[in-house]
């Protein structure tokens, strides 16, 4: 199987909450490989964390997040699975689960942007 690689993109509800999100993500410091911040979006990348674990990170971020995309890639097959969460009435709803082809989740990231307008970050950007 190999270790999964997971990409997490979160849209911060309020720019002042950026530090809260950073702190929450910091808990996983041992495993994150890189982090990029674009305006109100934070993207990070994790080795050895699957989609379930990353989903728990998203749930813990709570009010700080408006939307979040988790894309997890199985190392051996390069198949990616994405989950999109959207905040409504103080809770995060899971609105989409999609599995892509053997291209490290690139088609999943593209699909989510085409159909939900959310520019998630994957392995190639």
């Amino acid at each position: 199987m190999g270790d999964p690689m997971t990409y997490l993109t979160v849209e911060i509800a309020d720019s002042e909450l950026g530090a809260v999100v950073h702190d929450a993500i910091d808990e996983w410091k041992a495993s994150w490989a890189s982090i990029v911040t674009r305006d109100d979006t934070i993207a990070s990348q994790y080795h050895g964390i699957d989609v379930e674990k990353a989903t728990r990170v998203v749930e813990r971020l709570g009010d700080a997040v408006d939307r979040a995309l988790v894309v997890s890639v199985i190392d051996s097959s390069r198949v990616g699975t994405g989950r999109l969460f959207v905040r409504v009435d103080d809770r995060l709803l899971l609105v989409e689960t999609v599995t892509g082809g053997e291209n490290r989740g690139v088609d999943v990231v593209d699909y989510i942007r085409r159909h939900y307008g959310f520019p998630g970050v994957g392995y190639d950007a």
Partner: protein
Amino acid sequence: MRDRLVSDDPAERRSAAADLYHVAGDDPDAAAEYAPVLVDLTDGEAASEYATATLHRIVSAGVLDIEAHVNTLEEGVADDGHLASSFGSGVDDRNPQSVTETELRRSAELLAWIAKHQPTDLADEAGALRGALPLEPARPGAMKALFLLSSSPTTRLDVPTKAIVAYVDDDDPRVRGDAIGTVGQLERFGKRHDAVPYFSTLIGAVEDPDVTVKQTALGVLTRGAEYWTHSLSARQLHSAVERVLALCDRESDPTVRSRARSLFYDLASAVVNTAARSALGVDGTPNRAVADGLVETAARDVALASTVATSLNYHHDADTEVRRDTLLDRIAERYPDRFASGSELLQTTLNEDGKRPGDVPALVLDLASVLLDATAE
């Protein structure tokens, strides 16, 4: 519930969708009858988040009737054929159409949802989805479903690429993007080293006015590009370099720009190799101008220069040496306070005593090392 979901009051529709979201959590079967109405609430609506999350719950439970929605598409296609054949024939056919545009649209969208969660159950119905593409109301959902089936790791989509290519110019950017993604999967870009059919269609799409379509086209093209770019003709390479380079320079979207740069590296490598082969008389017309132009372009950007330099290293003819020196000089010119010339830059890489200039990117020194290997030949 149905009356509330179709109420004229957006707040009422939203509240109904929220209630149904909870119902779907406990009893997805009970919520399933409202799935067609929910489809109408997913786009640009106050209720859209709840409606989408409710559909997600219903479809995850696998309780939708695939056959009924496939039948709706097939009836729509039959109606269309019937109308087309009676048009202008003088036959006054009063038979009403059996399905409405709304039903067609809803069924196609629900089949796209099913494609995500039960791809193996839907794979046999790809013919019905393909058949529905000419029907405008069904097209967005049908194309989305075809894309999802094409990219599912558990199914193989049995549809000719030609049938999909017809829609890469559709008015709806989501249809264009899904069509381009499907072409990439059907032609196995990234898995087959010679995947160049429909290349001109895909490279044309990197100039699409919609950023998500550009991103999708580049996502397809960057797969395995280090291999298949070498199967392109000189004309195809030339046209691709121009288009992709324009994106590297001007595109503001970070994902599109990053992918364009990645594709440019592979195209640059193929161009230089092709040009060098031509200059040596190995194949076809010499293309020295292309290689010279490329060196000038690469000199503006050290990351690109590295790719070009690696390719130059495979060839040891006189022209290549001139290009290599030109490249070094141009890069040295970017650091006038550090290097008087390209040869001085080369000398810097010889220092192993820790005196490397701290304010010069490591990439420049790595690049000079690559070029130094060639000089040592």
